[in-house]
């Protein structure tokens, strides 16, 4: 999997979760999407961990600045056994 493929998969999760369509790009972040509040964020993280089969380490998600960095983090955690 590469970053683009991860973002494509993230897109389907976002499509499920958000009422108004959001088009994901590597540069997009929570502040660009009005519906992306802290509650939606929690659902989103649970859904991502579930569907990618990853577990993020403490504090690392909030260090990602946008969807691109978040996708990279998913890739990094996916490589772990």
């Amino acid at each position, binding site marked *: 999997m590469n970053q683009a493929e991860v973002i494509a998969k993230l897109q389907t999760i976002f499509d*499920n*979760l958000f*009422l108004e369509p959001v088009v994901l790009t590597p540069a997009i972040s929570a502040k660009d999407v009005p519906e992306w509040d*802290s*509650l*939606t964020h*929690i*659902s989103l993280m*649970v*859904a991502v961990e*579930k569907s990618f089969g990853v577990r*993020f*380490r*403490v*504090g690392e998600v*909030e260090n990602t600045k946008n969807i691109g960095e978040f996708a990279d983090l998913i890739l990094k955690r996916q490589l772990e056994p």
Partner: protein
Amino acid sequence: MDFSELKTLLLNGDPRFWEHLLALTRQAAAFDELLFLSSLRKKAHARKMSPPVAAPIKTRLALVGGYSLYPLHELLEHFCEIQSTPIELWLGDYDNYISEVMDDDSELYAFKPQVVFMLPAERRCVYTGKLTDPRELVQAEAQRTVDSLLELARKVNEKTGAEITTTNFMLPARHDLGAFRSRTLGSDWAFRQWVNLELGLAAPAYLHICDWAFIANRLGGLAARDERAWFESKQPCSSALLVELAREVAHLILSFKRAPKKVLVLDLDNTLWGGVVADDGLEGIELGDTSPRGEAFKAFQKYIASLKQRGVLLAVCSKNDFAKAAEPFEKHPDMVLKMEDIVSFKANWEPKSENIRAMAPELNLGLDSFVFVDDNPAEIEIVRQFVPAVTTILLGPDPSEYVGQLADSRLFEPRNITAEDAERTSQYRSDAQRKALESSVTDMGAYLESLQMEAGISEFTPVDVPRLSQLINKSNQFNLTTRRRSEAEVTAVMHDPNFIGYSVRLKDRFGDHGLISIVIGEKAGDTMKIDTWLMSCRVLKRGVEEIVLNELVRLAKWKNCQSLLGTYLPTPKNEMVRDFYGKMGFTLTNESEEKKEFELRLKIFQPIPAKIKIVRHAYESS
């Protein structure tokens, strides 16, 4: 209906959105699914889509505690709205509950809450001294923890008169101290259990306990915690437990508003026993210790009997011929429930909905206090449709799960403390004094007396045949001859006038032991040969041996015999009864490798006293 279809309903402003939201919420267990459903619900409100039924007035609920209460509040709000007890929330700040409660001018009190829910911080429920400190020291610290919580609750009650609920404390799930954790009160494990117990026992009537320790235990200790969620956002527990916690609080709020159910209406065939009594007959139904299924049905009956003891009224509603349906209640030895336990017994061919409807005026209770239990989906459906006020429980396919299903229905949970309970207290007290007396008993005779044992001695009966045969075939230790017999052979003995056969059932104040001893005697001239004498080892040395012998002598005399002939046939397992006949006053007459024979002259025999009340004898109509 799935989530995307629900979303479409919302986008189209379709009013069917609400019913499907309800259904999906009932099915959903996962945290993220529930949060998603909750966010859809809020978006529907924001779009001014109103639910079909006007919402009841919202209860003002304040949530305070030593944790981030977000997103717990979201789940709580969702569950409460879905169960038609909507809430208006006020959220305390993270770990600010003590000052929110103690400050007379806090926003908490300005909110005028009707319900206050408090989650005290578990990190304050620890013993900070040494593990080896004397117990009194640790106990005093635990008591202070309890007292400070009770003080917070007292303050809230004084200021608001609200219903107050506090969580107790989750127990640790890591090995940490090893087995030592339960050898000291200073470990978190022991300390929190002590605090939880003391808190529950000391809580005044206005304080409810949300039993977090129990909920976490039910889910599983490791699954209940999530350290990452604590460090990242001060969550009290794992998201899975957060869901359960929110459900529990919603359940408590509902229980403030809704009276518990009062009547349990029971189906019979495949509910109270296995099989169909009208087809299989009294002897053919599965009930009691002869089969695993029979045991499961009996256990279900015992659970139902315990509900009756709590004050639940029991009723029967069965599609049956009345006499057939009543027969097990009157004649089956393993029926726990008896006719007198049932306040209304409807066994006929009318629809069950009509039968249940007729019970309401009979018992002078509303239909909404009825719960109907059946294994047949069609019967459940007819009741659901025609008397919707009645709550129904469709039993699953496995009777071993019936008890769990009924217990988890949460329909018969007792209220906190009622005036009635308070009145009963003095009665309990004298009970407790009596029990303390009994537990101090040291001599055996007084102990046996305190057991209040009752024995029923019965000749072999057709309905007992499976039990007799089973015990005859599995009993090894207290078994003088170890002669095995099939059901047909037991039946043959029963009908042969040269044989006597009887069994003993024993119960005491702790419960019913069931059928525990069997004797078969064969008359040969003026001698009664003891073909079989066996007993369950559970009741050894309680006097059963003695009453069995008394009965044997009585029956031998009745059959005009002069003596008893007892035989011991050794096996690898029945060593314990090698000298049994000798101890009972028989004389050894013959001894070899293969057997020992003993004789008892009836003329010289005196009945042996025992601390067992005999409620019936064999071959005497009871």
